[in-house]
């Protein structure tokens, strides 16, 4: 029994080590290569990091990072649920923007008490996101169109559609030289957590965290989650095990789209209360990086979302100190590439290692058996 426990512990430790090795290798690579870039441009390879670390100690920057991470987290969960079954939803970007616009318009046109208004807006955003992703899902299920191609196309269609929706002649309101969808009714504003001087953390960040827990629970503890993961691990084996592949694909796409639909809400309901030209646009793409970096695990994604937000928010200060804040962009880019390479390398290495270990352990066990046999014979 004790040996069993020890073995289990060793296995767990190994799994943890393999899990952490990927991101650590990627981050180290990114730091080293970024330093090379800095050196090559004749700048200090160390100071930008220290500036960015110092930034992270300021409470107002911390609030910015957390708020940003909340949005990234939702987008990354949407991407990750697709990844878990080998679906690449590149369309999170279009889905969250369209969902935010529709939610903003509904929020401006409909006035219900807060207890109904906020759930209504959340529902509207989820349905919009799900619908937009569902188009790609349907195309794939019925016509075999790759979801990668379909969602990329839908991103650009979404941009045009949004442009149309906030025309002043449609639902838009011109404010100065900014196009907006009009201010939402106050009952739809999501209460934030007041941090005093430092600002306000979006209340929706809490919902994002809860969704992270739900994501973990559904994937790891429910039959549906098992079927979804099985489909991702081997479509043929899942089909033979009784998973209806088409239905699973459509469901996963809808869930992914619904989550994506929420990604714009922290900002919309917590701060801007309107969708305008200045609404951030690449959260969906950052979500892909973050989901990759976080290995589709809810905890990993949380760390990755914080890391990327930190790079983004803390790098603003670099400009003031004579560095280019694009250093952070370079780092992000390298991280993305390095992560893909290092995960695959670690995965292959881990698998080989386990195969070898299983071989050795079985050989030892076999050796013990034979020596026992010999003893018996001798006795």
């Amino acid at each position, binding site marked *: 029994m004790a040996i069993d426990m020890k073995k289990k512990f060793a*296995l767990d430790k190994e799994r943890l080590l393999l899990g952490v090795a990927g991101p650590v290798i990627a981050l180290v690579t990114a730091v080293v290569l970024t330093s090379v870039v800095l050196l090559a441009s004749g700048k200090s390879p160390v100071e930008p990091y220290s500036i960015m670390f110092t930034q992270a100690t300021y409470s107002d920057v911390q609030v910015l990072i957390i708020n940003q991470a909340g949005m990234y987290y939702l987008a990354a969960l949407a991407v990750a649920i697709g990844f878990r079954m080998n679906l690449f939803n590149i369309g999170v970007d279009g889905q969250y923007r369209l969902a935010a616009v529709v939610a903003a318009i509904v929020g401006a046109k409909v006035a219900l008490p807060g207890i109904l208004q906020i759930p209504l807006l959340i529902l509207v955003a989820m349905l919009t996101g799900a619908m937009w992703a569902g188009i790609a899902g349907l195309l794939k299920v019925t016509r075999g169109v790759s979801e990668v191609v379909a969602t990329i196309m839908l991103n650009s269609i979404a941009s045009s559609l949004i442009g149309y929706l906030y025309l002043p002649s449609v639902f838009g309101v011109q404010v100065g030289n900014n196009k907006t969808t009009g201010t939402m009714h106050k009952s739809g504003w999501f209460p934030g957590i007041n941090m005093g001087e430092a600002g306000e953390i979006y209340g929706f960040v809490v919902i994002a965290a809860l969704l992270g827990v739900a994501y973990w629970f559904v994937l790891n*503890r429910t*039959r549906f989650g098992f079927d979804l993961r099985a489909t991702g691990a081997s479509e043929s084996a899942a089909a033979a095990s009784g998973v209806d592949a088409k239905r699973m694909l459509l469901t996963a796409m809808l869930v992914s789209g619904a989550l994506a639909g929420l990604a714009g809400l922290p900002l919309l309901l917590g701060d801007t209360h309107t969708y305008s030209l200045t609404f951030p646009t690449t959260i969906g793409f950052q979500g892909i990086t973050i989901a990759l970096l976080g290995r589709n695990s809810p905890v990993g994604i949380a760390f990755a979302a914080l890391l990327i937000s930190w790079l983004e928010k803390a790098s603003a200060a670099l400009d003031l100190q004579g560095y280019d804040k694009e250093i952070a962009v370079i780092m992000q880019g390298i991280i993305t590439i390095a992560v893909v390479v290092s995960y695959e390398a670690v995965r292959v290495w881990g698998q080989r290692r386990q195969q070898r270990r299983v071989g050795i352990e079985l050989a030892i066990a076999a050796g013990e058996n034979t020596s026992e046999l010999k003893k018996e014979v001798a006795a």
Partner: protein
Amino acid sequence: MHALVGENGAGKSTLMKILYGMQKPDEGTIAVDGEQVTYSSPADAIARGIGMVHQHFMLADNLTVLENVVLGSEKLYGIGGKARRKIAEISERYHLNVRPDALVEDLGVADRQRVEILKVLYRGARTLILDEPTAVLVPQEVDALFDNLRELKAEGLSVIFISHKLGEVLSVADEITVIRRGTTVGTAVPAETTPRQLAELMVGSELPTPETAESTVTDRPVLTVEGLRLDAEGGRPLLDDISFTIHAGEVLGLAGVEGNGQTELIDALIGLKHADSGTIALEGDEITDWGTRKRRESGIGYIPEDRHRHGLLLESPLWENRILGHVTEKPNARGVLIDIKAAQADTRRIVEEYDVRTPGIDVTAASLSGGNQQKLIVGREMSHHPRFLIAAHPTRGVDVGAQAQIWDQIREARREGLAVLLISADLDELIGLSDTLRVIYRGKLVADADPATITPEELGSAMTGASAGHLEHEEEGGDSVPAARKPQPEDES
């Protein structure tokens, strides 16, 4: 021609991987032509004239033979006329009979294997390693393969081949090495060895003698298939008017060269493909329109022909693989939730009862040897007490010890009233285990035979479409592997 035999997990594949440069040895040396070598990749091995034909063919289905052969070796003879001439030349020289412009997906198993051999020769191999080359072939094809190999030998090439079929090893090899648990336990000269001695050397103990089992066939039909038809896109029938009944306690053996509709029949029975016409009934229920999950829940067990594609999640731990296919059933599920504790406990039980050799249930399925993976699948399927079991090649790539064990489990379940559809390329297994035999040829059931009297050779000729109807045996044939045969009483019902 050197044969390498040993149980699954004995280290044959590992040894071959080392010879082929896919894995590095911790100790010891390899000498090629008397010269000591170390290699870091298969490319080095190829450069030394060593080539490997894998057990699972490594061909791209949607490319032609020519494209498959030049793939990765474009530098040797280009990709055009010169490569084509070279392929024709090799094909001619060793009578491989390969058509360079055929699409690989249209080729049968034996043809694919010849393409694999040609691929290796094209790269200049002087030593060929063949990993279980006969596992997927019918006797006639095996003979053809051995003829090819003899041609190679005559041209001065060396062949190392791995096999479980001891009769074949003895008939074709010049020397045999037996390994067990990672070490060489003996070498044998075929002329002085019997299959039985060789088998005992392999498993390290005396073989169990085959039991003379009583017929357990009842008259209660479990699976009834009527007029089943399945069309390919374009209307060509893959399965045509298939009708049969399997009773409780009956093993129906289906013989056929691969690619004659077996895969489609399995798919239609498990619900991966839906019949274009005809009905399938499981005891009282008509299940023709049911999905795969409902079929499995209602008691259809499934040992798939390709365990990697259909039976396992290779990168998932064993206990998750225990859940696969039975996610809605006890002990794996509690309502809509997964009962991880119960599933893990039950995995431990399966590992114990079915002798799955593994250090634990948290290792991935990919780290087990093929035989142990199969034992896990058999254990999983049997644990849900199926009424009807689809057993496709249940012992393919499985060693003698595990083979006997899997047969015993099927016989045991049969005694308790299980109906089994057995599909196998191993004719000894098919004849030894079945109560009734049918032959499938081009999507039709063309012949039936009595396993008590039929010989593998007679069955083999029916599989190539040479004979049809009820096969009458002419003369009792000799047994090649004693463990695989047992007399079986007549059981017409």
